[in-house]
């Protein structure tokens, strides 16, 4: 019995040397992901402060995200259109690990900040963002009672950019991303445009198309995992 056990250390060495050959399991934190994340961080810094007639300035995240999100890069800017004074907040969050974004999207984050969801619909937007000419976004309508009796109405348009270059408004497909080797390590990005005052449908469409066209290089970078 003991003699059989004596081969234990040598069998262990053999297994250590052989198992990775038969069942390879590379590091999810590989160099390619690190390079990709660094390129994305750089692309975030290159987003124009002026997009067409929109001029931007930094603002805190509308429904702030805590450290559980663990973002690789965040952009949160309020753009004001010169001439009309229309404002919209553009938020882009990239997580190096796709699983970190789970649970962080408007139907979760806004209610946690005192907002109530009053409406939700999927909209098709026709706009060249480099990744697609036509894509689907979610529109969420929220309101929050304010101290003096009126309400703060917020419309949030959101979609996700996958590392394969596709976009989606389907949250379930994001949860499925973390389902095969290394895919979650390719990261995921969420884009939001937040509008806090009444706009006509035409103004909303113009706001969305102009701001999203203006960040085309960033969107392309987000969807290009090499």
């Amino acid at each position, binding site marked *: 019995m003991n003699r059989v056990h004596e081969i*234990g250390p040598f069998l262990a060495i053999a297994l250590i040397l052989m198992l990775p050959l038969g069942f390879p399991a590379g590091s999810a934190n590989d160099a390619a992901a690190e390079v990709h994340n660094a390129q994305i961080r750089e692309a975030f810094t290159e987003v124009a402060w002026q997009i067409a007639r929109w001029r931007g300035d930094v603002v805190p995240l509308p429904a702030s*995200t805590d450290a559980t999100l663990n973002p690789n890069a965040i952009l949160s800017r309020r753009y004001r259109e010169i001439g009309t004074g229309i404002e919209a907040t553009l938020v882009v969050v990239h997580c190096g690990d796709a699983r970190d974004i789970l649970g962080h999207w408007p139907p979760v984050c806004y209610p946690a900040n005192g907002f109530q969801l009053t409406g939700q619909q999927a909209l098709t937007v026709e706009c060249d963002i480099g990744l697609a000419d036509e894509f689907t976004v979610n529109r969420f309508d929220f309101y929050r009672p304010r*101290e003096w009796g009126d309400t703060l109405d917020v419309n949030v348009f959101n979609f996700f950019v996958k590392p394969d270059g596709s976009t989606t408004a389907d949250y379930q497909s994001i949860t499925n991303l973390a389902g095969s080797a290394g895919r979650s390590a390719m990261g995921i990005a969420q884009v939001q445009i937040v509008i806090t005052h009444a706009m006509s449908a035409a103004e909303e469409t113009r706001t969305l198309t102009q701001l999203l066209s203006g960040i085309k290089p960033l969107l392309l970078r987000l969807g290009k995992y090499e």
Partner: protein
Amino acid sequence: MQRNVQKLQLWTAGELALTGLLLALAAWMCRGPLLDITSAAFNHPHQTHILLVLPAALLLLWLRRKRLKYLRFSPSLLGPAVILVGWLLVWVGHEIDFRAAYHSGGLLVMAGALLSVTGASALRLFLPVFAVFVFAIPVPGGVRQQIAGPLQSIATGVTHFLLELVGSTATREGNALLIEGQRVAAGEAMHGMRMIFALALIAFTFVFAIPFRPASRIAMLAVSPAVAILCNVIGLIPTSLLYGAGMSEAAETVYSIMQWAMLPIALLMLIGLFRLMHWLELPVTTWRLAGSAP
């Protein structure tokens, strides 16, 4: 004397070299999961408790140092079996992107390398030292989300209550507070999740640092989440007062400091609980402490 010295010389240089080689090879084989764990410990704000695992393991080992003389070179097939299971977990974890399996498999391979030369005796003698490495597995995002929600709600509720107690007008909006016209994301800023796992690790180390009876260990571990929440509430008191005074940035800084300060306070609470149980003459330890009542 000569006989005693001979008894302690249980490992030859060759056996130690073989052990070292096995551990080095296992570490190289599992560099993916091990580096991933290290990266999470240093870079992820909610995984910093992993940094405490090695000191906790060393402390538990130090407390059991007298048992080292019973640890002999005893080759075993248990080690290769654990290595096989561990690597399959690493492989499956990588293939289906199940990181908890990926990380725990890496740690199992390391344990298997050691068990290959010591057999099950290492487990029998140092089980808590092995077990504490469970805390080195980064907490999956889904679990963090499940825990963060209730903690945010508790933190916001307690802060709101404390502010009303000191006469500050605060309105609760979900997990945010409106204080003097300023919105404060109290729930997100102060849910204390960062410390929950660190406090659980401290509770684990504490109950295995003292020769508790198994039932007492389970009882102490069961109350540790309550201790963690209580510690977070203590940290919220000065933070809430600063929020009430309109000093949001100072409040968040103080809260960050308070979170770390809560670790020794949590330990003191556990010691206090132990003392209380002992004073009540409950049979908490496997032997009576010197000076205790007969």
